[in-house]
């Protein structure tokens, strides 16, 4: 469709729901007729499972092992709605350098002219957890993704990871790196979760681009190796993902976040801890009174 594909990176701590969310966004975009590539940048190599029904897919880095120069067909497969699924791959936990792996995989995809060949409208990168080192920042550095989103919950570690991503974005912005698209709130359950995330966004000069509730539909679809868009297209959750997809690829102000520094983040967390603890405490007390 468009001449130049839009590249978007989605970050967040492990297990927060990056792959689920990214896959549903990809599925929603594909459903609307867009050509989409989803690239899993996580050594777990499970980013695109629910797009491809769990079918076997060799990773990009597997080809490094035998020094062969793979063809695009070897390292990609078409999933739901024609989404081109690619897994960067990487070492097993505890050995090697996953960061270099991401950089090497991205280089190889460029060499294979994946984008020139497939001509996507959107390329989504689903990137592993914390930005611990330079390797994990490759997708937000010069010339790759133009916007980065972070999936977070009201969990402190998820917010800590988001704050770290903000730091990386600020660092690379000066040299042409990605801007921040915003925060995707996922798996919200507790009553205070939304307020807490809103407050974090306000403090850091960012924006929540979507609130995805915790939903049975996600777990059910996952059991069939499918996205919610595919398995339960008429569900409320599917609608939420569609809206999120429109928001993520749509035109919106991208910005430079203002990450909190260590002490500020701690103070902020403590404040919220007092509030939440107070709330639960209060609730218990009133329950005891009954």
């Amino acid at each position: 469709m468009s001449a130049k594909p839009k590249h978007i990176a989605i970050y967040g701590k492990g297990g927060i729901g990056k792959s689920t969310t990214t896959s549903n966004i990809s599925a929603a975009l594909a459903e609307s007729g867009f050509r989409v590539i989803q690239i899993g940048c996580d050594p777990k190599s499970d980013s695109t499972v629910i797009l491809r029904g769990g079918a076997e897919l060799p990773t990009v880095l597997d080809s490094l092992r035998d020094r062969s120069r793979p063809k695009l067909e070897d390292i990609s497969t078409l999933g739901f709605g024609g989404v081109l699924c690619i897994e960067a791959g990487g070492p097993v936990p505890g050995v090697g350098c996953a960061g270099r792996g991401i950089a090497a995989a991205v280089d190889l995809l460029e060499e294979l002219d994946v984008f020139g060949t497939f001509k996507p409208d959107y390329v989504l990168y689903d990137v592993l957890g914390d930005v611990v080192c330079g390797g994990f920042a490759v997708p937000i550095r010069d010339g790759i993704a133009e916007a980065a989103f972070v999936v977070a919950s009201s969990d402190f570690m998820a917010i800590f990871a988001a704050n770290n991503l903000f730091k990386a974005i600020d660092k690379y912005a000066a040299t042409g790196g990605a801007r921040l698209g915003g925060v995707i709130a996922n798996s919200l359950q507790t009553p205070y979760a939304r307020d807490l995330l809103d407050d974090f966004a306000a403090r850091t000069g960012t924006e929540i681009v979507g609130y995805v509730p915790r939903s049975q539909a996600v777990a059910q679809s996952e059991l069939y190796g499918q996205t919610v868009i595919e398995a339960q297209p008429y569900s409320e959750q599917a609608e939420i993902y569609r809206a999120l997809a429109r928001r993520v690829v749509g035109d919106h102000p991208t910005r430079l976040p203002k990450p909190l520094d260590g002490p500020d983040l701690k103070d902020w967390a403590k404040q919220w801890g007092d509030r939440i603890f107070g709330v639960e405490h209060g609730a218990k007390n009133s329950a005891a009174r009954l």
Partner: protein
Amino acid sequence: MARPLVGFHDGCALHGALATAAAIEGVTPLVHSTPGCALRGAFSSTGAQNFRGAPIHLSPISSTNLAEKHIVFGGASRLREQIKNTLSVLPRGLLVVITGCPTEMIGDDVPAMVREAVTQGEAVVDVGAAGFLGSAHRGYERLVSVLASRVGELNLAPASEAPGLVNIFGIVPRYDETWASDLDEISRLLAGVGLTANPIFGPGGGLSSLAALPKAVASLVLSPWGLAPAQALQEKSGVATVVADGLPIGADAVEKLLRQLAAATGAVEETAIERLLSSERRYEDFALDETLDALSRLGRRRVALVGNSLLAGSLARFLVSTLGWEASALVLTDEPDGPLPTDLAGRVVATADGVETAAAIRASGADFLIAGARYGALAAELGIPLAAIADLGGRASLSGGFVGARGAARLLAALTATPVAPKLFTPQAALAAR
């Protein structure tokens, strides 16, 4: 070394460990790193000018030559394979696995691979010598410390008894250019008083020398880099540590050293010391007589000294106490840890950087320079004589040492090698005046 260096004086820690391992006969170094690390070992020990390709002057080096896939997926299994291959083509001895920056950064489990080979009855040790840990001298320190503390586990053939054995620590093969010559002369001096030097490196050393480390009566530490190995050995095997004031240059320094050793070991006869010292003194006096004319033409000089801590401080002391010269600057290019020599306080700089070194030389107002040959241009520009004590290529290791009276003689020869024409009368000046 967390800053840019220009005209660097030293290799990286891996290069020091590599040169050190290669200087022990029977040891095969195995570099676990990317290909350039092993190759650059040659580059950094000969200087860029003399680089001629592969390091032919080093013993066979095995290297895992890691490619990108090993960085991404880990290089441990590549190491396992290389250990096996190396042992199958090289004579049994000791394999020293030296890890460089890339493998240290990605955290390859090198000890596990080495343990695996050791349980199969092979003699293998590993030392982490990533260049970011420091200079070549640091690499020596790390490797020799590992050898000293693990010598008992290395399956080496037991060493024969050598009464009065003294381990020599702190002379770094190749990076202290006169290493072999200095080890040789120290060995000769110790033999003169009934002690046996254990030089570890060069023709007098080897695997049996390693095996003998714990049997020594003392470990003699000649530079700050020898201290950790000596202490490791002391902890493990109770060998006493004797810390000397650098390389003993001239008869007085030899006397001081021998008395230290006598006190520490109780194994040296006073008469033997006296006998040796009198011959040392006669030799030194002879050398002074022979160079007297040239020395008096030089006059008393303000000298700037550039060298490693093994050598530079002792050189300065000899020049000050024996010739009455003044040391106006001392640049320690191996950047030793710990306190700098106090007798030259205020005039000592520790830097491996060529530009900083040149600045220190200029600022010193010296009228004589003792440094590596690379400072020839600077000396010419300043119009002062240069006695080259480094950057001399392999010949320095054979015949360039500065230990004892013979070393002092070589120093005197070097000082007077640059002809200094009398200031008052030169043929050119006379011609120009006509």
